[in-house]
């Protein structure tokens, strides 16, 4: 049904993506981690991100990245993750260049330059450090990408409202209002065009200046909407005190429980190893043996724990 056609084009990205396709009773089909209960997949993502912060050894980081990619693949989100990968590549690339240039303390110098204010020493250790930080950042960013792709806004809001109902309500309401206010903005702009205000031609400066009165109309209208919503909230009993929370009964599947338990175990292993100093890989003044940490018990435990959820929901999807 072409109801969408009647509404003016919404703003970029996900605002438009909240489209007709998403409204089936159970939402689009979900796989892998996306099917897992939100709390469990959140715990898993936290464990992955924690690993990204804690690990230093490039080889361990590569293993972590492999786990991340497999998780994305099993959830069917590899293609959707491309924008995030591009960002990760860009930033990580920047770090891989920045860090070797400006870090100090390595002994195997490859290239040196003395500038008036600073001294640039590119060492093998520095390069290894650069590679390591690039990998770490990539891992963390991809873990967050996984979070964004696997937990849709509604899941995220559900989790947030457990912590503080009022704040969850504000976030929920704000999220709901974004497309509405975007449409209002379009509508106001069209109305002003129809009464002679030139918004589309002329110098950029003039066009921008012409939009300022529209902002005040938009602001006023948005806040008036807010007042209507507040009245609606009170009319529906908000503010009485003694509020309960509706928790839709979704049973814990075996996969959910396994994921959550594995995440917990991984976090424990990572923190334990951190405290025990197992993840402290030294770059300076000489590189530690990169292969040694791979046999470390804390690492092996953490890796096994992180890999377990993947074994539970193991089917590759494009």
């Amino acid at each position: 049904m072409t109801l969408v056609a009647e509404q003016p084009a919404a703003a970029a990205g996900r605002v438009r993506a909240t489209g007709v396709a998403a409204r089936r009773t159970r939402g689009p089909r979900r796989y892998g981690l996306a099917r897992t209960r939100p709390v469990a997949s959140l715990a898993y993502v936290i464990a992955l991100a924690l690993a990204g912060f804690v690990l230093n050894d490039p080889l361990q980081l590569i293993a972590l990245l492999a786990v991340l990619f497999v998780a994305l693949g099993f959830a069917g989100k590899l293609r959707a993750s491309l924008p995030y990968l591009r960002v990760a590549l860009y930033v990580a690339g920047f770090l891989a260049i920045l860090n070797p240039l400006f870090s100090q303390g390595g002994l195997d110098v490859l290239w040196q330059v003395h500038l008036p204010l600073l001294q640039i020493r590119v060492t093998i250790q520095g390069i290894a450090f650069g590679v390591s930080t690039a990998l770490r950042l990539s891992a963390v960013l991809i873990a967050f990408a996984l979070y964004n792709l696997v937990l849709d806004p509604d899941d995220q809001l559900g989790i947030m409202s457990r912590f503080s109902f009022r704040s969850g309500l504000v976030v929920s309401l704000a999220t709901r209002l974004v497309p509405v206010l975007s449409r209002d903005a379009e509508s106001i702009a069209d109305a002003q065009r129809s009464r002679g205000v030139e918004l589309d031609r002329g110098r950029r400066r003039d066009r921008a200046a012409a939009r300022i009165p529209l902002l005040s109309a938009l602001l006023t209208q948005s806040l008036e909407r807010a007042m209507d919503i507040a009245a609606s909230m009170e009319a529906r009993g908000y503010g009485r005190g003694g509020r309960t929370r509706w928790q839709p009964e979704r049973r814990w599947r075996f996969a959910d429980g396994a994921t959550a338990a594995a995440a917990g175990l991984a976090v424990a292993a990572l923190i334990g190893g951190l405290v025990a100093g197992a993840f402290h890989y030294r770059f300076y003044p000489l590189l530690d043996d990169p292969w040694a940490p791979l046999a470390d018990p804390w690492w092996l435990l953490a890796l096994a724990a992180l890999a377990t959820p993947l074994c539970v929901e193991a089917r590759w999807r494009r």
Partner: protein
Amino acid sequence: MSLSRVTLVALVVAAIGLSAWAALEPQSVDWGLVTFVGVVAVVGVAVVAYGARDASAHELSLVAALAALATAGRVLFASLPNVKPVTFIVLVSGVALGSGPGFMVGATSALVSNLFFGQGPWTPWQMLAWGAVGAVGGLMGRHGRLPGRWALVAAGAVLALAFDWVVTLWMYIAFTAHTWPALVSLYARGLPFDIAHVAATGLFAGLFGVQAAKIVARFRVRTRVTFVGLEGTS
């Protein structure tokens, strides 16, 4: 105790523990982790504290609408790098509504706009930084007098710069060699973006700031009911 309370307490304990460890053994600590957990804890506590304030439906709706407006604005200007009207809107909200609501507008804007742009390790930092912008705005407007145009422009410019610098910290602390040249070059790389942000915020504030603050201030909670006598007929 509910699961959420437990988690929050665990978070704060973790933050304190990590900070203590950082203080005691600065060499071996992972700063990225410490600061991340710390920022999350601070933001978490602030948000929960706000939630406990028993804010009215009126105030919550205002905060939500302003955060939604900030998000819509950010989406609108997405093609222009770092031209984020959010800072301006958060500042004005703080000025007109006070520090508490101002902080919430900032933190909510960060969270909600990242629902559209993608959450990342920068999110807690953005929440904290924009929340601070709102809180500072509240300080500016605290005596009920709205600041003038140039005060808003100056505040907007400074806060925009501060925002960018604070948010860049996460990358420096967690993922960059802790040397002066690295810090300088990291900030230098961000300079053109910072300029765009500062200029945009200053421009918004100069052209529209006072008017916007007046409009938002009109919607401050101020319902007073006068009951006129007469108990009689019933």
